[in-house]
């Protein structure tokens, strides 16, 4: 291929999803050309990034061709704005006919017989699926090191983790392997990797996006959401996947708020009348100075655009980590009971000399099929739910959950959105926290409260810390008012881009793209 063609592809993959969609609508580029360009980047980047567990090249090209054909015949009227734009999917979301493993050995080779509701919507929108991205096994972890298959690297420093559990989706989007991706967020698995990779990650209101076909981890906390490079792209994807679904009994039977409109409004950089609450319990102590510095500057930028900043207190947030590490493992122990070697997934028979019974087969299968972190959480959850301990542990955690919801309700009486740093530290080195689970759990101290309270939250890049690594800025909004956080998030993004002279990802060194342009 000529040099000119290659440099054009380099430019193509750096576009936002919204820009790609514009070019598709204006017939300057086809969906197939976009898919081919991304597949080239994936081929070039994967040896150093390893964001994907499975690349669905043939399916993506077929989906692109089908869309292009429809588009050529003028039959794409009424399709969502992102129609034809390629996407990557966290391997925690089931895709009919494409292997789905949750990064666990227990599901190795499993080909789901159905699509998650969000996948049905993605397919109906003509968005080609590039592949399935890596994660901590069953989305349990904060570094993606607990994947049973591969270690995903942070494109900002490939000696460091991309965060987790959705490190694959975040790294894929940051390294331009995909313009957008889907993730799942149970305690921060979309937002914390967003912070560590310099991308945008959104956890919608609990019940705002269907969980049908999201592999269940902790059902009262799990939420599917968008991963992107811009706030507007996240908004476009959020509206596309959101809304009521009769297949999910916790789906909210109401229309979504106008999220895209709010993001566009925010781009005007006028925040007069917006009240921003600084949560004093999630800031300062325990946060790296470089993280705190970028956070403080971003807060100032919000004020400069007319936002009023007030300090609010959520006194029970200091109990959030404890409540989370009781409720989540309890639900994990229950949800993961389905992996019993009977109907699908791995089956390991007990060793000879042991009774060859169903119960022993289950124990042998689960011992062989689950990794350390998953086992630890199942055991902890089994304990928290056992007779004699249930009231003291699970019962207390559920009460703390009520207190945290009340804290948020009180805080939102004083302001429209709440803010905090997304993560206490920037990306850490491989192995640094693997032998100390509690230190790893503390990574999510700022993100967990949103899952407990069911409120929407998002992380956007706030700049680079002194160590040259990305810092995330987190917004929270009241339940079912996801639109309220998109406006200041888009405004902050625009202000920071303006001050910097372009998006933060412009400064990311991308040798995998340069080798393509050669």
């Amino acid at each position: 291929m000529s040099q000119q063609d290659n440099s054009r592809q380099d430019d193509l993959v750096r576009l936002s999803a919204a820009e790609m969609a514009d070019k598709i609508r204006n017939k300057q580029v086809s969906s197939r050309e976009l898919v081919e360009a991304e597949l080239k980047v994936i081929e070039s980047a994967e040896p150093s990034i390893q964001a994907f567990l499975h690349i669905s090249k043939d399916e993506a090209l077929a989906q692109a061709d089908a869309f292009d054909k429809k588009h050529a015949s003028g039959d794409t009227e009424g399709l969502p704005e992102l129609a034809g734009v390629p996407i990557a999917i966290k391997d925690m979301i089931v895709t009919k006919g494409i292997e789905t493993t949750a990064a666990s050995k227990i599901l190795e080779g499993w080909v789901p017989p159905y699509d998650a509701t969000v996948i049905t919507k993605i397919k109906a929108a003509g968005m080609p699926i590039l592949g399935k991205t890596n994660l901590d096994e069953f989305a349990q972890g904060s570094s993606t090191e607990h994947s049973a298959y591969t270690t995903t690297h942070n494109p900002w420093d490939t000696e460091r983790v991309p965060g987790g559990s959705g490190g694959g989706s975040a790294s894929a989007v940051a390294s331009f392997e995909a313009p957008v991706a889907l993730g799942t967020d149970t305690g921060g698995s979309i937002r914390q990797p967003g912070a560590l990779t310099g991308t945008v990650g959104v956890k919608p209101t609990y019940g705002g996006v269907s969980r049908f076909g999201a592999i269940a981890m902790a059902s009262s906390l799990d939420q599917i959401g968008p991963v992107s490079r811009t706030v507007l792209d996240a908004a476009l994807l959020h509206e596309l996947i959101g809304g009521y679904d009769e297949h999910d009994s916790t789906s909210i039977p109401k229309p979504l708020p106008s999220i895209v409109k709010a993001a566009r409004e925010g781009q005007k950089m006028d925040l007069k009348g917006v009240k921003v609450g600084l949560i004093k319990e999630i800031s300062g102590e325990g946060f790296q100075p470089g993280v705190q510095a970028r956070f403080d500057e971003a807060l100032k930028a919000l004020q400069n655009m007319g936002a009023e900043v007030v300090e609010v207190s959520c006194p029970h947030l200091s109990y959030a980590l404890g409540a989370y590490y009781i409720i989540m493992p309890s639900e994990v122990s229950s949800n993961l009971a389905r992996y019993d070697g009977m109907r699908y997934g791995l089956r390991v028979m007990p060793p000879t000399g042991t009774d060859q019974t169903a119960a022993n087969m289950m124990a042998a299968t689960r011992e062989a099929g689950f990794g350390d972190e998953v086992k630890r959480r199942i055991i902890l959850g089994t304990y928290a739910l056992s007779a004699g301990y249930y009231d003291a542990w699970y019962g207390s955690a559920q009460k703390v959950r009520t207190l945290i919801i009340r804290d948020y309700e009180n805080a939102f009486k004083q302001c429209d959105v709440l803010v905090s740093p997304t993560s206490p530290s920037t990306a850490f080195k491989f192995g640094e926290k693997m032998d100390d689970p509690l230190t790893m759990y503390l990574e999510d101290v700022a993100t967990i409260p949103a899952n407990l309270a069911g409120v929407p939250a998002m992380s956007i890049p706030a700049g680079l810390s002194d160590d040259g690594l990305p810092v995330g800025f987190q917004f929270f909004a009241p339940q079912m008012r996801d639109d309220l956080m998109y406006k200041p998030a888009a405004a902050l993004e625009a202000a920071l881009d303006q001050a910097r002279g372009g998006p933060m990802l412009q400064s990311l060194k991308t040798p995998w793209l340069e080798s393509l342009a050669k």
Partner: protein
Amino acid sequence: MMWIMPTFTREEIEHLGDLARIALTDEEVTRMQGQLNVIADAIAKVQEVASDDIPPTANPVPLEAYMRPDVAVTPLTQEQALADAPATEDGMFVAPRIMGEE
């Protein structure tokens, strides 16, 4: 309510492994014992504020129960449902025997 400060003994972890149907190795039990006791210390304090007058929350976004329309849909075929099974016979899942030798 009684405050419970757990200490995980080897026997307890082995018992939990049996309940959860995971054949933990001795080495795993040893490692888990240290880790679980550190984690338990950090989370036990939820009991501090969980007084009797606070109602528990199971679903953070409570919804009213409602009836869905009764619409017939096509479920997975038997073939699809069995496609990824470890063992099948005559359109059924094959499982190891349920009872022990005795």
